């Protein structure tokens, strides 16, 4: 099996720029654990792909260019692509293009060697043409890693699309989707704060792009970041500073963390009673910030997801950790 990765997932000695000018020419000193595990499993590495900047989607403009990962799989350049899908672009475009995008529950796949964006929700996902390939790769990359302190202790996982019962699903329009109207707000409040912190390191000092004609250390930071970061990352950094600022912290950031607990508890209880929640993979009547709500539920709660076409619909299936086989069986059988 041949795999490729977004360049925000590191390979030692390779140029890993994460799709950003701020990391132009950066050669990684280390291998991401997910990369090492794929190589050890005998998979062929087909190279790195340039993502949207660090895997982010442009939430505030209408540009929806096909991601390089989607194109690579559609054009048979590889069987799977490992991605860090920060704002749901890969999930959405996979379903739009007849592919699958599979992401394990938070804490099951190592993030060592992944360029951090939203540390409390980032999950390495697998884009694939054939769901059985995606499942094989998920089994390969998941499991405890001592290099990542945010993982569950289980050493390995053995997911499959076979279950002994018929999976039970709930559709979004059959239940009260509590907090759904503010999921985008909750997610972006928390995400922007974490992105702001995680991208402070891109300052032109130790690696990456350094501006020219600088006048002192302060000018070095400001010019390098202003010239090197794309506008989506700039707005996320600015909004992150805004929600963490003294006057806004309690009203927005602290509030979002508390509502996150309510969201997690409500949907975890719901998904304890059934196997799978079925959500649309996209909403073509909404802009990308509004559509973020569809994507945000799973990462906010740490759930596993798979997107694709199932029963003739472009959907996202969501489940709690432990019900992955039922979710995969439903997508594999193509019947909700």
């Amino acid at each position, binding site marked *: 099996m041949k795999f490729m990765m977004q360049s925000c997932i590191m390979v030692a000695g390779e140029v890993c720029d994460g799709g950003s000018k701020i990391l132009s020419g950066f*050669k990684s*000193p280390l291998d991401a654990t997910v990369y090492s595990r794929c190589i050890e499993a005998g998979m062929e590495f087909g190279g790195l792909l340039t993502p949207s900047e660090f895997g982010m989607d442009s939430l*505030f403009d209408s540009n929806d260019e096909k991601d390089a990962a989607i194109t690579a799989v559609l054009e048979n350049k590889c069987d799977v692509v490992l991605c860090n899908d920060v704002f749901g672009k890969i999930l959405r475009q996979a379903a739009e293009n007849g592919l699958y995008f599979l992401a394990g529950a*938070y*804490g099951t796949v190592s993030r060592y060697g992944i360029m951090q964006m939203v540390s*409390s929700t980032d999950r390495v996902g697998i884009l694939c043409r054939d769901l059985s390939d995606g499942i094989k790769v998920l089994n390969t990359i998941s499991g405890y890693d001592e290099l990542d*302190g*945010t993982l*569950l202790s289980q050493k390995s996982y053995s997911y499959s699309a076979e279950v002994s019962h018929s999976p039970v699903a709930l559709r979004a329009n059959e239940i009260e989707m509590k*907090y759904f*109207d*503010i999921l985008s*707000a*909750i997610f*972006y*409040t928390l995400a922007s704060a974490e992105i*702001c912190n995680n991208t*402070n390191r891109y*300052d032109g*000092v*130790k*690696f*990456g*792009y*350094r501006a020219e004609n*600088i006048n*002192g*250390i302060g*000018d070095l*930071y*400001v*010019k390098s*970041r*202003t010239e090197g*970061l794309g*506008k989506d990352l*700039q*707005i996320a*950094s*600015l*909004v*992150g*500073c*805004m*929600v963490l*600022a003294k006057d*806004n912290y309690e*009203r*927005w950031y*602290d*509030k979002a*963390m*508390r*509502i*996150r*607990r*309510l969201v997690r508890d409500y949907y975890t209880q719901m998904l304890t009673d059934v196997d799978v929640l079925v959500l649309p993979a996209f909403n073509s009547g909404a802009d990308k*910030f509004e559509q973020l709500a569809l994507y945000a539920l799973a990462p906010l*709660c*740490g759930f596993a997801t798979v997107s694709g076409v199932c029963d003739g619909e472009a959907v996202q299936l969501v489940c709690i950790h432990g019900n992955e086989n039922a979710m995969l069986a439903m997508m594999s059988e193509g019947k909700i």
Partner: protein
Amino acid sequence: MARNTVQTYEPMAKLLLDDEARIWSNEVIARLESEFDKMDGVDTDGIEPLVSVLDLCNVLREDVSEKKFSREEVLRNAPEEYDGYFQVPKTLE
């Protein structure tokens, strides 16, 4: 009119936007303020913040010194280096 503007946060984010970028960014911020304000309608009295979805706490390793990278490896990506150090403009007057 938005309560917050990007100009307030540019120094914190170590950014300096041009006029066009500021106009666009302030429009985004104005929209986000109204989105974030929707959270006011949720009662969170007695609810603790959720920092992580996992019940992990203080995952530590043994306090043993490890040398992961050589000086040469660490400096390999430096925009400017001098005598084995990262070189930057003067930081103290």
